[in-house]
């Protein structure tokens, strides 16, 4: 009788898991990541070259929803003041303080690396995964889901496949593996410290490794503030130039 109950419970869990199809899991993951209405974050970015030599960059970012963001470097001195404004529909502006000029920059640069780091503009983009990728399979592995994504035909990327490991408890990704056209894994993102800040889950320490080049970049959120009611005015070219 006891055995029967166990069997029933196991079946129930399995049924529940199957009910969670890949697309739904992807959707839940996106909702978890982009849950905050707005965020004010201070970032410390440490870039390691293939010999392990490191350099540090710091920046402040403001983000509203997932398609408005302003990114401003504070250190090193040589890059202080440089700002990037991302707006909906792939509109991006760059401000260069030395020239005292802003320039709209091309979105087709997405596959290139951002500020010498191992993150590409594409990786940094705060666009939901579901907008760019189709979920094609889902696997259960202990406390994790393993989600496989393929880029949508409209999404222009160097990646041909993404494998995301995410916790069943919080739907927050732990690891993302990126594959190239020859189906070789080329990059790996590890969210090393995932914590709940207020109502939201966030990775405050994460690392991107470029497996071909042997380089890696560690990002650390040194301060995080959510839902402080940022207005749309914060995300304008005028604001970008002002500071």
């Amino acid at each position, binding site marked *: 009788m006891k055995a029967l109950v166990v069997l029933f419970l196991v079946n129930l869990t399995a049924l529940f898991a199957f009910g969670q199809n890949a697309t739904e899991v992807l959707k839940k993951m996106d909702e978890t990541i982009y849950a905050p209405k707005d965020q004010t974050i201070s970032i410390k970015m440490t870039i390691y*070259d293939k010999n392990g*030599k490191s350099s540090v960059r710091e920046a402040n970012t403001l983000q509203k929803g997932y398609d408005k963001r302003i990114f401003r470097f504070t250190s090193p001195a040589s890059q202080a003041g440089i700002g990037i404004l991302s707006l909906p529909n792939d509109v991006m502006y760059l401000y260069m303080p030395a020239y005292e*000029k802003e*320039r709209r920059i*091309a979105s087709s640069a997405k596959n*290139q690396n*951002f500020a010498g780091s191992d993150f590409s503009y594409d990786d940094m983009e705060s666009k939901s995964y579901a907008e760019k990728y189709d979920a094609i399979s889902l696997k259960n592995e202990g406390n994790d889901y393993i989600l496989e994504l393929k880029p949508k035909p409209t999404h*222009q990327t160097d990646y041909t496949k993404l494998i995301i490991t995410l916790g069943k408890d919080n739907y927050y990704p732990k690891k993302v593996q990126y594959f190239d056209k020859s189906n070789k894994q080329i990059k790996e993102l590890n969210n090393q410290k995932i914590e709940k800040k207020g109502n939201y889950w966030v990775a405050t320490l994460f690392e991107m490794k470029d497996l071909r080049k042997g380089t890696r970049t560690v990002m650390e959120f040194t301060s995080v503030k959510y839902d402080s009611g940022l207005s749309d005015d914060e995300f304008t070219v005028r604001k970008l130039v002002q500071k």
Partner: protein
Amino acid sequence: MKKLAEWIVRFRNVVLLATLVITLFFAWFIPRLKVNPDVISYLPKDDEVAMRFDSIGSSYQGNTIAVIGYQSDNIFTEKSLNEIKAITDTLRYFPGVSSVNSIINVIDIRQEDSVLQVVPLIDEFNIPTTTERLDSLKNYVLSKDIYKGMLISEDARSTIITVRIQPDLKIKPDTTISKDSILAFYQKQFPEPFYQLKYDSKTDTLDVLVNKTNIASALRNKLLSLNLQSNLYFGGLPYIISDIGSIISHDIIILGIIAFIIILVVLYVSFKSWRGVLMPVLAVGIAIVWVLGLMALLGFEITMITNATPVVLLATGSAYTIHVINRIMEVSFSENTDVKNVIIKALSYVALPVFFAAVTTMIGFVSFVFGSYLVMIAHFGIFTALGVLLSFIISITFVPAFLSYFPIKHKAAKVEKRKNSPLNVFLTKVFEFGVNYKKSMVVFWTIVILFMISGINYLERRVDLMDYFKENYPVKKTEYFLRQTFGGTSYLYINFKGDIQQLNTLQLMDTVQQFLKTIPSVTHTLSVVDIIKEMNHVMGEGKHLPNTQEKVYNLWFLLEGQEVMSQLVANGNTEGLVQATINTSDSKVMSEMVNRVENFMLQYQKSGLRFYQSGFPSIYKRLDESLISSQFYSLLMAIILVYFIVSFILRSLRNGLLAIVPIIATVAVLFGTMGWVHIPLDVATVLVASVSMGIGIDYAIHLINHVTYEMRSGLSYSESIRNAVTISGRAILINVLSVTLGFLVMLFSDLVPLQRFGFLIAVTMITSGLSTLTLLVALLSIKNHKSK
């Protein structure tokens, strides 16, 4: 000697079996032998020039660049652009490739509709399809100097794709894991045959050696298998080297077989016996198998120099067996005794002179080890000396043991016939001539030697890699096409160390670039300065370096992470590269270029910035210099050393001097001929001197030794010389004829250095033989005359 001879005859079965077993053992390893055509690896690991080149390789993703030319009716068609994209993609994901540059992915800096673009020149996801867009792209690309004539031809019919091949890697693996599991793990990471893993237990590092030439060849095969409808050209150093390599192996096989047949025919005509024919070739063949097997067993690689070892052994080593057989036949003619006794008697005489000949030849080759800077020359010296020793051992063990079972048959009639054979008649004439006109002979040779020495003044060091190929050879045509259209396929580098982002560093790099542009053989230059200027232009401040440091920093921000940057700056912006494309492979032009650049840089020595020159010109200059200078040095060393040894063997300093006269004559004629006929000293021809040494001394030792032997057995001095000339002279002449004719086959080679090599070996053989039989004989009879 007699005891040894008796022992060999008594244990002939053991000797034969042992030879067979050893030969099979070594033959089994030969297929493992690897060819290493990577020229740079020939320099010692701690050589400054090699280290600089290596460090450029590891800083900038590789220093070996393959250049692929793509040609169609018009590059700016949807079909062509898609084909170029396919090529770019194929190359990008090909193992062993670190980066690819083509018009598809080259970084382009422009302002379009007020949007700043720092993006690939052509968006690979949106290749233009309409005639209008294609034409506007064409006009745009051709309007920019950084593309026209560099990346795309002026007629827009061809473009180049440059491929950087991965450098060797050094990995520090986790030392808690066993060596075997480390190797097994990395074997999976680098499964392709062009990777070689070597674990160094001392430093706990894993070296991943990359065979760049093989990767280049694999790339070529892969692209050709795409069946594109356009023409593809494969240029640059990796292809030039791999083609030289494949022509050499092809020629050595085809021409080697023909040469073997010719040698066999000459030997047959001389010995009139198939056994007499087969033995010398077989004996050397066995020695070659042993040497190559040993090289494979010990992990040595075949280089552009060591691949001459079999050929050189054929020339030097076959003589030992010829002398042994000649002597055995001689004894069996004159004495009617059973075959065993014939062999014992012949061997007890001939073993010693053959041994001396072998030892002196070995010394000649071993001296290359001490005199040489280049590793490959040292290897050549060691293994050729070893091969000579083995040829000698085989000629006095295996050869007599074999002949004791299968004696060379002769009939009484043949003996008479032999005495009147044209060869003998000729040798008698030579002897009489040498004795009767001894003074004129010496005068004649003195004039020849002086004439030849004066020719050495015209000896040229100038070598052009392109001269290696006959006209119309595909590699040569490709190279000239790529030079004409895109300015060349090899590069000179100047690497700067310091803070590359500093405006004054960039200004100095700019100055150096402007200077490089004034050198006639430099067609283009490229550095991060060009990109900064381009960006400053787009920011509306003109095509020059920005006027403030802050502006440089701002521009740099946009550049960081761009693929092209990893080819121009390295190690966290502490190194920056100026790359100059050159359109020459002429050693003299390159040498002058290296010196000119060196001199120019001197004036900036005090700037506090460190910089150095590297690239193909400096590597080539270094190889060229060390090859030639080490050769002259070791040749001189060898002659002096051989002189003392020969004097010791002959127990006379004067006889020793006589013995080296033919060598001096031969070396003079060799270099003199090269001077007068304008054959430059290069990798191949420089080796001929070593061969001439080895052979020249052998002939002299045999002759002088024979004279002393005959005198000890009671003959008069004059009779002794006559017998030496007619008996030993016979073996000498047979050797000269067979090897000369064999090597002349190389005149039909596809590679010019091989043609020259064959011709010069022939010159050397003939001079060694003739000077021994005429000059040495004349000197010997003058000595006789005086001592009377």
